[in-house]
């Protein structure tokens, strides 16, 4: 089998950040090639270069054996490369057909496009209604559209960037199955992922990137999980936070509670239905669910950021909240850390603001949470993601000791930083100990620190007891997909 796509010795920097430093990846035709790496390893950057969205500073790119240099994704598309992005590149206000047509020239022949979409649908099994409005499509269908877009341009090499991140376990399995059939049928697929399990279930070859370099490249058959993990995170052993004690005395009243709470959002969609949740001092309540199942609203109701449409929320006056999007919801990156500290209590402050005191408090947060920053006056933007997150956690702890709610706090952080942040969140502190609610889209992460787990599915919240076998994930995955 020949070589479909080959990147060799690629280097790419963004300002002072070096994203890629001699990365290589050789993809054989007719295979599924898994490109593994932790967040920030450079996988997306590397493939964006292959797709012409970025140019490489150094190194070479070969498509079907011929050396090329793309200056735009149009050229890559013309060469048969298609990319399915992690965040869909779709225009919600337009129809399926219009999204497929985008990028062409001249007149739009709607009938021809619709016919093409239908024929690809029959060929590949990815069916779509050409006139459907993209905004109304469910996530799985939108992803199908992304793939169909690539196929309509006669893509023979498909690059998929973290495709299972937004899918339910069932949809993810379907996609993996489809990828296998696609490769068996002669297509070439590059699967960018950080999930080992996905890679092992479907790939023929595996390449591992770490810190912008290729550290491992072999046939899947020659590898085992342990070897790949070592390549992913290096050889330093990882200290995962100790699993918290699972049994508590439940005599004290809960710190946080939802009693029969329902929540209907501004568009009239019911996000949460009759939810009953209790969180006690010292325990870590894990919350899991696929995107859109209601955990976003659940967390915010517990944190007091949303008011219930019906039912009662019991909580202390202020609850610490660590939102998923720290750069837009938790921090104002352009402002100094001191102002970011004041940000958290801005709604409650009255009268005059003493800056000297605020600065001192900021210093103590920086120290207590081990934030690597020059001082309280440095802008939050100059801190690394992990340190920003640690600052946020420390700030929330300082201001609201009794309860802390965290939403995907390790998103976008590398393994080491993620571990430290989790440690910071889950460590018992204060008298009485903080009640913690933790949500992560990574089930393993939640299970490693939680004392109890609730699962959100379609607006309902249900506690799932620990299975007898601690490595058994099925009760949770079934609850997440409503099949139990």
């Amino acid at each position, binding site marked *: 089998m020949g070589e479909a796509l080959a990147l060799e010795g690629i280097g790419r920097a963004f300002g002072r950040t070096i994203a890629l430093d001699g990365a290589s990846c050789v993809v054989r035709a007719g295979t599924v090639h898994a490109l593994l790496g932790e967040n920030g390893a450079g996988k997306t950057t590397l493939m964006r270069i292959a797709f012409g969205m970025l140019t490489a500073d150094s190194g070479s790119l070969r498509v079907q054996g011929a050396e090329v240099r793309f200056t735009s994704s149009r050229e890559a598309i013309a060469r048969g490369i298609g990319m399915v992005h992690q965040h869909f590149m779709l225009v919600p206000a337009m129809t399926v057909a219009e999204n497929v047509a985008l990028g062409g020239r001249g007149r739009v022949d709607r009938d021809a496009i619709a016919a093409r979409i239908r024929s690809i649908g029959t060929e590949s099994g990815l069916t779509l209604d050409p006139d459907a409005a993209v905004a109304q499509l469910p996530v799985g269908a939108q992803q199908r559209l992304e793939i169909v877009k690539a196929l309509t341009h006669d893509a023979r090499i498909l690059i998929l960037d973290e495709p299972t991140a937004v899918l339910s376990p069932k949809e993810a399995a379907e996609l993996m199955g489809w990828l296998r059939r696609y490769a068996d049928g002669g297509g070439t697929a590059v699967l960018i992922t950080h999930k080992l399990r996905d890679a092992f279930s479907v790939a023929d070859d595996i390449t591992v990137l770490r810190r912008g370099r290729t550290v491992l490249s072999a046939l899947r058959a020659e590898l085992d999980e342990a070897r790949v993990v070592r390549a992913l995170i290096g050889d330093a052993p990882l200290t995962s936070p100790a699993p918290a004690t699972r049994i508590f005395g439940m005599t004290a009243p809960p710190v946080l509670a939802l009693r029969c709470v329902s929540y209907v959002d501004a568009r009239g969609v019911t996000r949460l239905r009759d939810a009953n949740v209790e969180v006690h001092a010292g325990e870590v309540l894990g919350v899991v669910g696929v995107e859109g199942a209601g955990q976003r609203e659940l967390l915010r109701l517990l944190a007091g950021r949303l008011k219930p449409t019906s039912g009662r929320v019991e909580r202390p006056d202020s609850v610490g909240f660590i939102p998923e999007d720290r750069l837009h919801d938790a921090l104002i990156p352009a402002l100094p850390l001191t*102002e970011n500290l004041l940000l958290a209590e801005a709604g409650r*402050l009255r009268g005059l603001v003493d800056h000297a005191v605020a600065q001192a408090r900021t210093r103590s947060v920086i120290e207590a949470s081990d934030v690597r920053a020059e001082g309280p006056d440095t802008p939050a933007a100059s801190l690394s993601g992990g340190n920003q997150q640690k600052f946020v956690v420390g700030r929330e702890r300082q201001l609201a000791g009794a309860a802390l709610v965290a939403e995907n706090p390790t998103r976008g952080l590398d393994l080491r930083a993620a571990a430290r942040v989790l440690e910071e969140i889950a460590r018992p502190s204060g008298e009485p100990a903080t009640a913690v609610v933790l949500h992560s889209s990574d089930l393993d992460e939640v299970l490693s620190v939680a004392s109890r787990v609730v699962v959100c599915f379609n607006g309902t919240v249900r506690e799932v007891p620990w299975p007898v076998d601690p490595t058994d994930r099925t009760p949770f995955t079934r609850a997440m997909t409503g099949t139990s």
Partner: protein
Amino acid sequence: MTDALLALWDGAFGSSYAVWSATLVRATPLLLVGLAVALAFRAGVLNIGAEGQLIVGAIAATVMALAFDGLPRVLMVPAMAIAGALAGASWAGIAAWLRRRFGVLEVISTIMLNFVALALVSWVVRGPLQEPSRIYPQSPTFGEAARWPFLISGQRLHLGFALGIVLAIASWFWLARTASGLRVRLVGASARAAESAGGVDVARTTFVVFLASGALAGLGGAAEVGGVTWALYEGLSPGYGYTAIAVALLARLDPRCVVASAILFGALDAGAAAMQRDAGVPAVIVQVFVAAVVLAVLAGTQLQSAARARTATVRAEEL
């Protein structure tokens, strides 16, 4: 060219008359309205309606001056100022309410209200407030009590300027040292983060700032009729509300710098009149200069990307 520039300088700073009766007097409305714009923009409220708010402020002050002409000066002057501020705040309040209740973009609503204010003053000076002989489209001249006191004998610098300085300091203090001022700054930097992380009532904060901004602009109008013109007529404001945007931007929205910026623009205005008179160069060229300065500042700050942190850009969900 040098003749023109010399005339410009002379007109602005060349004599004590130039400084105290021309430059600073022309700077006064720009100072007050500049503060209005700076405060609003700082909170992310794009108040382009300072012109209309200034006009209704002038109308209200005029009504006060004419309707209560028995009042002694010590009561009349504050009454005019308060009337002006209230009128300006109310006018801004219309746009603020439309934004809050219906999501109407304030950029459009405030501009529409400017035109309505212009129509209003046009009617008022030809109708209910017209001078007794009914010939000229203007109000009767104010009585002694309604003429704002001068700060320096023999010069035309009036109380409005002092008010402006005081309010500039107060605004700075408010923004920098108080909790509500902090909220304004945070909302302007990122309304989303202020709401999520801080629990700030963004709608209330922006509403209040909007009104405060209108009040300042209305006060600017009251100061102009009370301190300079002593009567109401059309064309009272040669676009102060729009120039104030340039004043505020040049000052990087900092109330302290608005003082300097307003004086600069006042100087340009004073100098331009002299330039036209003495060197024959049309004064309106200054407006071109002002626009060029704004664009240059924009380009400069863009290259530093400092502007983003201070004013909120238009968001589609606010339309």
